[in-house]
């Protein structure tokens, strides 16, 4: 597991020079001292709960909050949960995947334009990408609800040009949910990508076209491989929260668009079925980790697009 070391760097920088030589003996315990508080925090409030959640996922499903749960190692909770909710599970990855493709199609040109074409407007444009994040996530999603609503101008326009049937709608459809996912996590994709593309040396592109590469070839053979670290980080920072999200489905969709997040949310907060919620949480997390590590393994060697 050496991959995490370079994964999602918000600013995307790579190590440049070695740290100055540590004096042997002088600071032997210092690093441990420095790490202790943060590591302890993560251990106590991240690792321990996860372990506990793992245990909870093996509780006897017959128990309840009021009667208490017994740890009966009921591994059956997993197949049971999966059987009951596999459509939502599949939908999570399906929606997040489509949203990722859309986000790449929009985010790559955006990051590229800011990094390489914007010149003196670079900083302003970058701020424009970040600024929407400061308006609450929920408010923006509610705003989409307004924009996509049946009597809104967008639906009217689409009906007029017959892209939508006379009573076609956007809100409460998978389109709205995917659009919301794409929208909400787009900056997480753009920022690391921008950091990578910004360091891309202009002369490399010139050298490539000097060596008879068409713009498309230059992009495939030079730009894309060199932006790979940012692309990897951005893809992960987009895909992970998008898969686990349930607010977009809740606000922009209907129960027909519910993702696994909605199920987990209701298992914990509505149905109070802790074993099932825990089992689903673990299934989600392991599925995401499997995708992430599978992706990381291939990211360096294989073209993504």
């Amino acid at each position, binding site marked *: 597991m050496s991959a*995490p*070391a370079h*994964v999602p760097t*918000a*600013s995307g920088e790579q190590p440049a*020079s070695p*740290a*100055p030589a*540590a004096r042997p003996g002088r600071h032997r315990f*210092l*690093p441990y001292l420095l*790490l202790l*508080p*943060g*590591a302890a*925090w*993560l251990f106590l*409030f*991240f690792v*321990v*709960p*996860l372990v*506990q*959640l793992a245990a*909870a996922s093996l509780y006897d499903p017959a128990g309840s909050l009021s009667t208490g749960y017994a740890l009966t190692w009921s591994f059956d909770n997993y197949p049971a949960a999966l059987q009951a909710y596999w459509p939502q599970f599949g939908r999570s990855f399906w929606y997040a995947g489509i949203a990722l493709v859309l986000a790449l199609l*929009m*985010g790559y*040109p*955006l990051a590229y*334009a800011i990094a390489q074409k*914007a010149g003196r407007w670079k*900083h*302003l*444009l970058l701020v424009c*990408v*970040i*600024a*929407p994040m*400061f308006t*609450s*996530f*929920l408010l923006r999603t509610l*705003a989409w*609800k307004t924009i996509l609503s049946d009597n809104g101008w967008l639906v009217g326009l689409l009906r007029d040009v017959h892209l939508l049937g006379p009573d076609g709608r956007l809100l409460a459809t998978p389109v709205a949910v995917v659009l919301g996912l794409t*929208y909400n996590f*787009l*900056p997480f994709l753009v920022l690391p990508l921008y950091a990578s593309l910004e360091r891309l040396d202009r002369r490399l592109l010139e050298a490539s076209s000097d060596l008879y590469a068409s713009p498309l070839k230059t992009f495939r053979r030079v730009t894309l491989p060199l932006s790979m670290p940012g692309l990897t980080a951005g893809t*992960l*920072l987009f895909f*992970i*929260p998008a898969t*686990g999200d349930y*607010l977009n489905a809740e606000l922009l969709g209907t129960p027909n668009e519910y993702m696994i997040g909605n199920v987990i949310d209701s298992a*914990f*907060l509505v149905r109070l079925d*802790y074993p099932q919620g*825990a089992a689903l*949480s673990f299934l*989600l*997390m392991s599925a995401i980790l499997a995708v992430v590590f599978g992706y990381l393994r291939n990211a360096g060697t294989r073209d993504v697009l």
Partner: protein
Amino acid sequence: MRISRWLAEHWVLGVALLVLGYLFLPIAVVAALSFNRPSSRLSYDFNEFTLDNWRNPCATSEMCEAVLRSVQIGFLATVVATVLGTVMAFALARHRFRGRSGLNVLIFLPMATPELVMGTSLLALFVSGGVPLGFWTIVIAHVMFCVSFVVVTVKARLTGMDGRLEEAAMDLYAGEWQTFRRITLPLVLPGIVAAALLAFSLSFDDFIVTNFNSGTTVTFPMYVWGAAQRGIPPQVNVIGTAMFGVALLLVLATSLAHRARAGGQRRPAP
């Protein structure tokens, strides 16, 4: 001829502007609604222009309390996470020790874990430990998911820094503390500030983890969530727009100041 060539070189910019438009569309709606006098509680349509919402943003005291609480939580979580994360970043970037790679995994995992899973597992911990949910459990949770982002951001800045600068300082009679204060800290500060801003925005806007660990405490996102079911008071949009405006101004001001400082010295003296 000339037009097609120009297009070939600049179509990316066009696409970028369209995407930016997409990013700003909902903000525009939020901003517009902040000047709206809604016809009914559940209506999101633009009805009538008014400045009332801006004149009186705290029409519902409940909302303003929630905003204040979110700011408090954000502030506390940011301070704690920035301190813990920065210190860890220093250890990771500057020292070789046993267990480094294990620690890197520990720091990476929270970023690869869906918020939902973090929220639920923490909830289970607090419930089984008999910890009353509320303000402090929210702070604890926020620190937990902010720390990793702080570590990664600060570490990137630290490893990008030339270690020889510190050696040069020591060579010029600066002791360890002086070297840290005069060289290391100023050079890493932008990274720390960026990390703190990131932590604050993550905390201020968090709904999912908070929703699981808040008990009856209401933060701003939770207030919005609750209000969305009952009808949102237009003042919520005022807060959203104001946050956006403040962030925009802040960032613009710093970058302008930066440019002014650099621009004043660009031309060499004769």
